[in-house]
């Protein structure tokens, strides 16, 4: 398979899965969370680039570590999570720059999907499929939790279990997302397709489907435009996604 098709396929799957998961994050006011998580994955990305392994594999443990540290500090200090997130993610970015080779900085910051290897692409597509299936499986219960925790508890839903699965899915999508849009832009791939979809959707099924479609479409468009313009695909994906959003505001219901 050509390198271009590999990139396109991985990008479309990752973009779609990110948009789909993003629809659960918007009502929780968590759309922006993927941003700092992507930033604090940067040391892992840097390690992967230095030693030549898949950057998602490098990113994932750092995202998990970051989530754990924020949780731990919050318990210890009772300070607001957003302030602690600032501490943790800025430290991640700072540490990354100690050993990130400067010629690799672009790949780390805005992604490098055009050079994805065959086995990484297969792995990404498989993982995205799994993420889509799990999100679909927890969707009703998570929506109920998003609407009202009391209502969810009255239905005997185990909130802790569902929130844990949900956080793990976010960590996974961030780790996959850094491949496509780098450590700087991960918030955009979960946030923008979702708000675009929110502008147009009449009901929940449309909301989910459109977010998935817009996520995939933005990835495809960015990667294609990158072939034409020789500009990096990550930023082009975000700009395509933002363009769709602006168009959707015209048609907002």
């Amino acid at each position, binding site marked *: 398979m050509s390198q271009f098709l590999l990139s396109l396929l991985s990008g479309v799957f990752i973009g779609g899965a990110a948009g789909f998961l993003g629809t659960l994050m*918007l*009502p929780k006011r968590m759309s922006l969370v993927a941003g700092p998580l992507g930033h604090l994955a940067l040391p892992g990305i840097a390690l992967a680039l230095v030693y030549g392994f898949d950057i998602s594999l490098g990113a994932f443990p750092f995202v998990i570590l970051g989530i754990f540290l924020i949780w731990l500090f919050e318990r210890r200090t009772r300070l607001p999570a957003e302030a602690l997130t600032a501490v943790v993610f800025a430290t991640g970015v700072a540490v990354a720059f100690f050993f990130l080779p400067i010629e690799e900085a672009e790949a780390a910051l805005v992604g490098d999907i055009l050079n994805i290897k065959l086995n990484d692409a297969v792995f990404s597509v498989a993982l995205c499929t799994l993420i889509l299936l799990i999100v679909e499986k927890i969707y*009703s219960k998570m*929506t*109920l939790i*998003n*609407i*009202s*925790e*009391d*209502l969810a*508890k*009255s*239905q005997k839903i185990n909130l802790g279990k569902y929130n844990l699965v949900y956080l793990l899915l976010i960590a996974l999508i961030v780790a996959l997302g850094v491949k496509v849009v780098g450590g700087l832009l991960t918030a955009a791939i979960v946030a923008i397709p979702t708000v675009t979809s*929110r502008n147009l*959707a*009449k*009901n*929940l*099924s*449309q*909301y989910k489907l459109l977010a998935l479609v817009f996520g995939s479409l933005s990835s495809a468009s960015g990667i294609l435009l990158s072939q034409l313009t020789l500009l990096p695909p990550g930023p082009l994906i975000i700009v395509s996604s933002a363009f769709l959003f602006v168009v959707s505001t015209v048609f907002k219901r």
Partner: protein
Amino acid sequence: MDFILRVENLNVRLDGEDVLVDLSFDVRKGEVLAILGPNGAGKTTLLKALLGNVPYKGVVEWGEEVRVGYVPQRLPFIKDVPLSVKEFFKLENASENETRGILESIGLGEEILGKRIGDLSSGQFQRILIGWALASDPDVLLFDEPLAGIDIGGQESVYILLERLKGEKNLTILFVTHELSVVYRLADRVLCLNRKMLCKGTPKEMLTSEAISELYASPVRFYQHEHEEG
């Protein structure tokens, strides 16, 4: 006597503050119990404790295999999700047939299924919430402020619905309110509450009770905002 709920020495402490102190009461099957008290009296917290949603000390004992439906006071976050009425019922695994049956019993037509929750009137939304709680075929309904925030026309329709449900389904209903008029019209028995139990009795007894005036005359000393999410 056929009790469906027994509460003994219930105490709830939240964030270092005593929200409920030493409550004891029973509820009989088929009874409509009003829980009356000013803002911040711990009424919503009592419902949450009965549902097991907040930590408590003491005994909350439901009858065997009793199913409890909960109608929350408000759901501010529901408008963040573009949810149709049909999809809202699907969240509870209600089949289309069940949903239709429920719509009929809450007096709404099928055309409402395609509407977005966010586009409903306050009265329609309240009835949908009641219907949603009915979908799990409960024996008991816990109801937080049935009429709060509903326009007058909507209020009447919710009244009528509750009176009918009481008659038709032999439901036990516990509802929280601060409006005396609802109590007289619907309740068999009343608890009045301001952190502690101030009185128990029938609505008629309450009319002459000094507890009522005491309940509303005494300032609530530790006003606490108890609806973090509706």
